[in-house]
């Protein structure tokens, strides 16, 4: 997904000289080609994220389309006030790109786990939030972002996520994308953790539970009507994300349904309200932090029994 992002931006930058890639001295082996190909559209701002986002805002005010690239929480939480005041307050077309969101940098520790970013970024005014599940959704998200010169956040996995789509999907309406049909319960997923939802759906099918699986890469603006329609005919919606359940993708779905008075049962699944001290890779931590396949399977089974 990371390589897909850089490749997509490289293609776009060849056609649009306004596109800039700003990096906070991260992306070894990933961003160099972009810098070589477009030296006038590439800037390493050093390990200085506040300055980097302020610089991006200044460039956007001068007509550029900067993409600010770093990993985990470094391009989001560290310069949060710059994103809020310099970018969103002024409605500038700066895109924040975080690679390795969720638990992708597992064993590097909690400092490198971006697991509150959706809640925090989607609270900012006018900020569009994209969480693609695979390289195809990532490419589509970059295209959507470039259609509009307004603030955006692109939350990426790391690399080698399995492809969910044969072709680049259309994200223009923000509607969820169907991956697996099912009639009992709907699972809506933001991000690469969709692989786990598909595993659960496979295992559930063996016990006679038919699980519909969709990704929802456009978290904000959320197409609530399409989300509701996506769950039609099933008993309710389970949301799944590699992120705290508080205020994340599930929170966005809950809000959208609550303010409209819709009575669809919803179960948000994600990480607990705890800083993890577990050392291990992405799968290892998922297993122990409330996101094991067995745990998710059990929660979906129980939810379906209650809701049906």
């Amino acid at each position, binding site marked *: 997904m990371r390589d897909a992002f850089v490749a997509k931006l490289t293609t776009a930058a060849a056609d649009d000289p306004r596109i800039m890639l700003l990096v906070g001295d991260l992306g070894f082996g990933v961003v160099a080609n972009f810098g070589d190909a477009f030296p*006038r559209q590439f*800037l390493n*701002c*050093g390990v*200085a994220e*506040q*300055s*980097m*986002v*302020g*610089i*991006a*805002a*200044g*460039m*956007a*005010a*001068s*007509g*550029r389309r900067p993409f600010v690239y770093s990993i985990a929480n470094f391009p989001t939480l560290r310069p949060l*006030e*710059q994103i809020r*005041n*310099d970018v969103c*307050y*002024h409605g500038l077309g700066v895109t924040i790109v975080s690679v390795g969101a969720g638990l992708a940098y597992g064993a590097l520790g909690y400092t490198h786990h971006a697991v509150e970013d959706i809640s925090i970024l989607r609270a900012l005014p006018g900020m569009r939030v994209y969480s693609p599940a695979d390289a195809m959704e990532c490419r589509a998200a970059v295209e959507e972002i470039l259609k509009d010169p307004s603030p955006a956040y692109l939350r990426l996995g790391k690399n080698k996520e399995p492809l969910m789509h044969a072709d680049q999907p259309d994200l223009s309406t923000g509607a969820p994308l169907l991956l697996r049909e099912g009639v009992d319960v709907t699972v809506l997923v933001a991000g690469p953790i969709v692989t786990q939802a598909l595993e659960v759906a496979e295992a559930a099918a063996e016990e006679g539970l038919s699980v519909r699986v969709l990704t929802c890469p456009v978290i904000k603006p959320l197409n609530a009507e399409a989300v509701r329609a996506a769950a039609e005919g099933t008993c309710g919606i389970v949301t799944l994300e590699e992120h705290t359940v508080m205020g994340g993708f599930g929170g966005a779905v809950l809000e959208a349904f609550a303010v409209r008075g819709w009575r669809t049962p919803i179960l948000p699944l994600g990480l607990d309200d705890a800083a993890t001290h577990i050392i291990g890779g992405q799968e290892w931590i998922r297993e122990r932090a409330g996101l094991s396949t067995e745990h998710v399977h059990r929660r979906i089974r129980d939810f379906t029994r209650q809701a049906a």
Partner: protein
Amino acid sequence: MPEELARLSRLSAVTMCSQSGASHIGAALSVIDILAVLYGEVADVDPHRTEDPSRDIVLVSKGHSASGVYAVLAHAGYFPVAWLDDYYLDGSHLGGHVTAHGIPGVELSTGALGHALPFGVGRALTDRLDGVNRHVFVVLSDGECAEGSNWEAALMAAHHRLGNVTVIVDRNRLQILGRTEDVLGLEPFADKWRAFGWDVTEVDGHDHGQLAAALAPRSGAQEARPRLVIAHTVKGKGVDFMEDKVEWHTLVPSPEHLAAAIAQLETNTTEEPA
């Protein structure tokens, strides 16, 4: 021209803060001469070309000096002076921190400190890429130089040899709870900026001639470095009972304070005759 602009702006700023119950008059009086010289003389800006892509960019990072900024802009013709009358009041155009939205002449909304210099560096870098020959001026308070973002951007500007950037620090040596050197010392301040690779000059920040000279275009090797002008100022300048008094960052001038201030400001010019 800047002298009269500064005098009228001081009168307006004190009146605005008193009538609306707003703080920060000390900071406004401190920075008004710097702004009057920038908008009235040095910067290539004009009320009739606020969207002109060749205009100089003036950014005021100390957004709390809004009464002073708005007074200077109004008296320089950027928007009606009548807008100053309801400063900080419900439904006004003008709030208590500098806002760009709908206010001609304001390039960046500020209020949280340490934001304008990185933004200005972004504009200056873009100008260089585009071959645009204009200047970016950023006005900082001295207290806000405790913000790390300023030093991040200072590194960046020096690294890229951004001679098209000038920072003016309003060095009044006071911040909310005390003297800068007691709260979190900045000295040796000029040496710090020099060590960061900036071309540093120091002036009397209320002497318009010194300010204009320090802000004039440079030539030669200096031109290849970002410029830092330490403008030594007096917080509350022009109103004797406010001058160099820490409390006038926060206090609101009463009607009696206002009357006394107006009496001083109407008779005094900002510069003593030579």
